[in-house]
């Protein structure tokens, strides 16, 4: 239990930050925000790298490769696609 106090403290505080950070989001931003936070949750890539780095057998190598690849797709695709969606918020250039 004791050893969990610190991570739990951190977890609680981070959750508070998460709750506070999002307050009034216009619906048009729902999808980009979801996509962006999804990309952040791709932080699991760290776990994937560590796991893949430790692999010994073939199966685990395959699984490790898959894990890294999927996590990378999530991260790279996620941030890029979010950026694309957000491009619309640049003021439109004069068309006339």
């Amino acid at each position: 239990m004791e050893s969990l106090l610190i991570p739990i403290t951190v977890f609680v505080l981070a959750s508070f930050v998460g709750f506070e950070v999002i307050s009034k989001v216009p619906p048009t931003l729902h999808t980009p925000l979801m996509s962006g936070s999804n990309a952040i949750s791709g932080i699991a890539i760290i776990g994937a790298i560590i796991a893949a780095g430790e692999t010994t057998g073939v199966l685990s190598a395959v699984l490790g490769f898959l894990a890294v690849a999927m996590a990378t797709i999530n991260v790279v695709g996620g941030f890029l696609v979010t950026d694309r969606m957000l491009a619309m918020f640049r003021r439109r250039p004069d068309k006339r």
Partner: protein
Amino acid sequence: MNPTLAGYLYLIAAALFIVGLRRLSSPATARSGNQLAATGMLVAVIVTLADRQILSYWVILAGLVVGSVVGVVLARRVEMTAMPQLVAVLNGFGGGASALVALVELGAGDDGTRTLVTVAISVLIGAVTFTGSMVAFAKLQGLVRGAPISYPGQRWGDLLLAAAALAAAIVLVASGGEMVWAWTTVAVTGLLGVTRVLPIGGADMPVVISFLNSASGLAASAAGFVIESNALVISGALVGAAGFILTTIMVKAMNRSLGDVLFGAFGVAPDQADADDSEKVARRATPEDVAIALAYARSVVVVPGYGLAVAQAQHAMRELEESLTARGVDVRYAIHPVAGRMPGHMNVLLAEADVDYERLYDLDDINRDFPHTDVALVVGANDVVNPLAREDPNSPIAGMPILDVDRADTVVVVKRSLSPGFAGIDNPLFYLENTMMLFADARQGLAEVTAAVKDA
């Protein structure tokens, strides 16, 4: 790398995530927020590569390269309209990765109970996220019927599956990490993801994805407990909490409750409920959506109609005009000759609200400009913007010149429902791709849009 240094760098990455997420929730800063978050991710990945004792770089490198290529291609190629699907897929991959990491950890063997518990949690959430997201994708992409799919007794079936998944996970822990139980957990949980998402209507999919996203954040956080990485704990908790808030916001915007969406079994898409014809779907918008469309436009043409008069929304309209022009948006009014119920009906109202005569344009003058107009804002008008007048020679309004709002980039229509106007005929304008419907009394609706413009 010095592990303490690594710790501080992870902290910086986490801080970047926080700031990034914060900025992502406001239109003006969203882009830079996304970039900050991406930077944070880069930092985290590099630190991980440098810090940990990596045995084989090849597997990692292969994974990174393949993943990046696929990711870039997906992000570039997919059409703007298919974004929700794409996010579903990406989310699924994230969940899948979490589950796989847990499986690999397990394969490495020699784990304490605490690790096993977290592994089990990761597998549970990861697998359900993966299959659930994939089903969501299939529904959105039209690979599976969008309408809810379920079987009799679904509720009990799902409960059973959930119990089974939990049991498998518990056995997995109890058995000290037997691989077979891990795979069993994956299988059962994956199945649960499928059967749980299939009965949810297509229009609710974004909520499901957001929910699963929040869950995958928690999974990442759980992983953080295992590998004692505060970076994971923080980012995971952050996404978990933010995702949860976002989910509730989305649900609220749809006037639903989360339980309703996830367990309503036969939830029908509200967008479609309004359409009197199942093939034509009108896109329902919120005042905030409309506010953003208007606030970021260069030119807006307002088309007032009888509904503006009925709602006595002229003052509210004027107020909106002011807040838009204050932002530099060019606002004009297009007055159709027969808008309203008497000649000059709109003139009377707009004069009362002291709208500048210079802003009023006749049909002929403004029709030329619609193709260069960012947003046409139709307020309580219907017949006078009905494209059938141009297209259908048998329509009762055939031959009447109309305001060609459908040629604007985006059309926003403010009215209470999809019901017809004076001429009593349906209006195909409402079902166009580039039309957003704000269903509201014009006065109320415009006031809300004005309030939202101030926050946009």
